[in-house]
C-alpha cells in the first residue's frame, strides 16, 4: 500500500527523525495561507502516489504567498503518470549543505531487510544503482537482531561523514530501520536526507510503502489510505477478496488463481488480443464472488468480450457452473463471452452450462483464440 510523502514524513518524525515539516493544502488559497504562515521561500510539492514528480512539474519553488498561490494552482489538478494531484505540501525551502540517500528495503535474495545509503542523494537511486552501483553502500540487518549500531556507523563512514555527522546519521539510519520493521514497510526511504545550513540533519523527501499482508496489524496505516489515489474498481474488488488490476485492453478476464490469471492474459495476448484486466476471483468462486467479479469486469466500458477461465480443483466445476448461471441471471451481459471450465466434476459442470445453452471450451489456448475473435467481431 502506498501513502503520501507528508504521511511518510510524519511517521519518520515519530521515530525522532527531523523532517522539513510542511502544511498540506488542497487549494491554491490554502497554499498561499501556508506560505504566509511559514514565511520566506517555500517549496510546493504535489502529493500523489507516483514517482517522477519533479520531472512532471509537480515540485516547484515559490517566493512568497502570492507566488505560492500561483504555483499551487499550476500543480493542483495535473496528471502525473495517471494520478491527479489533489493536494500539495507547502514546506520551507531549505539551504542544503550536503545531501545523501538513505533507504530500507526487503532484500529478496538475502531474505532480509537491507539498509542502503549513497552519497548521491537527491537523484534517482535506481539510476545510481544501475550506472554506478559502487556508490550504493548496504548493510543487511540480522533477521532476528535487526540492524546493529555498528552497521549504522559503518554506513556513515562509507558516505565519508565525519565528526558529529557520523552519530547523527547513524541515529537516523537506525530510526529508519525501526520505522521499517515496526510499520511493516516494503520500502522506507529518505531522498534526499540533507545537512541543512545550520549543520543539522533533515529529511526532505520521504517515501514509505506498507506490506499489504501486514495491514491487519497496521490499523493506523490503513487510515492513511487515500482512496482517491486508487482505482475504484480495484478498491471494491479488494474489499471482497478479489484481486483486480485494470489494464488497457478490451478483453475482460475472470480467472481463479493469480498464476492462472496471468497465464490467461498471456494466452489472450498470444492470440493477438489485449486483456482489459487481471482478475483473480480467489479460491472459493462462490456465486456471490462470481457475480461481483463479472460486474467488475463489465463495469469497464472498453470491454468487448469476456473470457472466463476456471480450473475447478478443490472447488467443484458443477458448483462453479451454478454460480456462473446464477450470476448471469442477475447481470445483463451485453458482450460475447467464452467459458472454459475444467477440473473436478468437469462433466457435470459443463452439462449444467450446456443445458443453459452455453458452450464450454476445453483448452485454454482455444478459449483465448475464441475470445479474441469474439472481441474483434464485436469491435
Amino acid at each position, binding site marked *: 500500500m502506498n501513502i503520501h510523502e507528508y504521511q511518510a514524513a510524519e511517521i519518520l518524525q515519530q521515530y525522532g527523525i527531523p523532517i522539513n515539516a510542511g502544511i498540506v493544502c488542497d487549494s491554491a488559497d490554502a497554499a498561499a495561507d501556508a506560505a504566509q504562515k511559514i514565511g520566506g521561500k517555500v517549496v510546493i510539492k504535489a502529493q500523489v502516489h507516483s514517482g517522477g514528480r519533479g520531472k512532471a512539474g509537480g515540485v516547484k519553488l515559490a517566493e512568497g504567498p502570492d507566488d505560492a498561490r500561483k504555483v499551487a494552482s499550476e500543480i493542483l489538478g495535473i496528471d502525473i503518470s495517471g494520478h491527479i494531484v489533489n493536494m500539495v505540501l507547502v514546506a520551507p525551502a531549505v539551504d542544503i549543505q550536503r545531501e545523501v540517500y538513505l533507504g530500507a528495503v526487503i532484500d529478496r*535474495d538475502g531474505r532480509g531487510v537491507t539498509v542502503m545509503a549513497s552519497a548521491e542523494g537527491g537523484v534517482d537511486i535506481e539510476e545510481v544503482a544501475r550506472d554506478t552501483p559502487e556508490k550504493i553502500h548496504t548493510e543487511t540487518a540480522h533477521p532476528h537482531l535487526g540492524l546493529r549500531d555498528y552497521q549504522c556507523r559503518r554506513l556513515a563512514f562509507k558516505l565519508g561523514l565525519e565528526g558529529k555527522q557520523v552519530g547523527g546519521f547513524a541515529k537516523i539510519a537506525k530510526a529508519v530501520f525501526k520505522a521499517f520493521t515496526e510499520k511493516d514497510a516494503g520500502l522506507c526511504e529518505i531522498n534526499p536526507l540533507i545537512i541543512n545550513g545550520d549543520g543539522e540533519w533533515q529529511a526532505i523527501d520521504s517515501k514509505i510503502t506498507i506490506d499489504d*499482508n501486514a495491514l491487519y496489524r497496521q490499523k493506523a496505516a490503513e487510515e492513511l489510505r487515500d482512496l482517491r489515489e486508487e482505482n475504484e474498481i480495484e478498491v471494491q474488488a479488494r474489499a471482497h477478496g478479489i484481486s483486480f488490476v485494470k489494464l488497457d485492453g478490451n478483453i475482460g478476464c475472470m480467472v481463479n488463481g493469480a498464476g492462472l490469471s496471468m497465464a490467461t492474459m498471456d494466452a489472450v495476448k498470444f492470440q493477438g488480443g489485449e486483456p482489459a484486466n487481471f482478475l483473480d476471483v480467489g479460491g472459493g468462486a462462490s456465486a456471490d464472488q462470481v457475480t461481483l467479479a463479472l460486474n467488475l469486469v463489465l463495469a469497464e466500458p472498453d470491454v468487448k468480450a469476456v473470457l472466463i477461465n476456471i480450473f475447478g480443483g*478443490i472447488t467443484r466445476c458443477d458448483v462453479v457452473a451454478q454460480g456462473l448461471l446464477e450470476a448471469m441471471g442477475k447481470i445483463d451481459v451485453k458482450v460475447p463471452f467464452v467459458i472454459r471450465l475444467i477440473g473436478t466434476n468437469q462433466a457435470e459442470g459443463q452439462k449444467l452450462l450446456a443445458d443453459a445453452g452455453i458452450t464450454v471450451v476445453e483448452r485454454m489456448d482455444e478459449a483465448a483464440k475464441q475470445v479474441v475473435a469474439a472481441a474483434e467481431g464485436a469491435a
Partner: protein
Amino acid sequence: MSILVNNQTRLLVQGITGREGSFHTGQMVEYGTNVVAGVTPGGLGKDVHGVPVFNTVSDAVEKTDANTSIIYVPAPFAADAIYEATDAGIKLIICITEGVPTLDMVGVYHYVKQAGARLIGPNCPGLITPGEAKVGIMPGYIHDRGPVGLVSRSGTLTYEVVNALTQAGLGQSSAVGIGGDPIIGTNFIDVLDLFQNDPETEAIVMIGEIGGSDEEQAAEFIKNNVTKPMVGFIAGQTAPPGKRMGHAGAIISGGEGTAAAKIKALEAAGVKVADTAAGVADIMAQQMKR
C-alpha cells in the same frame, strides 16, 4: 523414488479444526496420505476425519512420530506455527497459509534454515507424490505417477499444467508448489537439485512468474547442475510494471524481474520455454519422445 514426501511421510496438520484445515485433511486422508495427527490449541481429544487432535505440536510429535507438518492456520499465526513445528523437530514444514507478512517470513526463513529443517511456502498449494502422499490443497485426481518432476510458484496454473501433462500421458514423480511470496522457504534451485538427484525423475517442468530474480538464479543453477531435459513457462508476460498481480512476488519494478528477462535466462540455460501454459505439455511430450 520421489522427492520430499512419500509413503514414509507421517503428516501432522496444524490448524486441523479450522474450515480449510479440516476440509483438506479429509481430502488428504481420502487420497491415501498418512495423516497421523492434527494440532489445534484446545483441540485435544477431538477427531477430524479419523485423525487425533493435540494441543501442541510437541505433544503430537511425541505421541505420533509425525515427521512432516502442513499449516493451515490464519496468516497472523502462521509464523508462530512454523516456529512451533521447527522447535518440535519437524524437518519438513509446508505452509499453505496466504497473506503472511513479509517481515514475519524474514525471521522464520533463517530460523528454519538454522534448525536444519525445510519450509515450503507460505502461500503455496503444497506438494504431491502421486499415489503416495498428497500434502497440500491440489486436486489429487489430476495427477498420475510418472517421470516428470514439476516445480511451480503458482497454484491453479500448476494444476492446469499437471492436468495437461497427465492427459498427454506424462505422469509426475512429484509436483511441488513453492509459492509466490517475496520470501519463501524453498526456491526453484532447492527443488531442481532434488529432482536432478531423484532417479525416478527423467524430465523437469518449471513454472515461474514475473517479479524477483528466482528464475534467473535458477537458470544459472540449471546451466551448471541440471542435465535432465527441462520445459519452462513464465506467467505474466503481459503484466504491466509496478502493479501487483495477486501474488506479492509478482511485481516488476525497475526493469527487474520481467518475463522477457526470465525467459531469456532460461533459454540460455537450455530450458525449452513454452509460449503459453497450454504449450508446456506439448513440448514436454516432444522432449520425452526423443
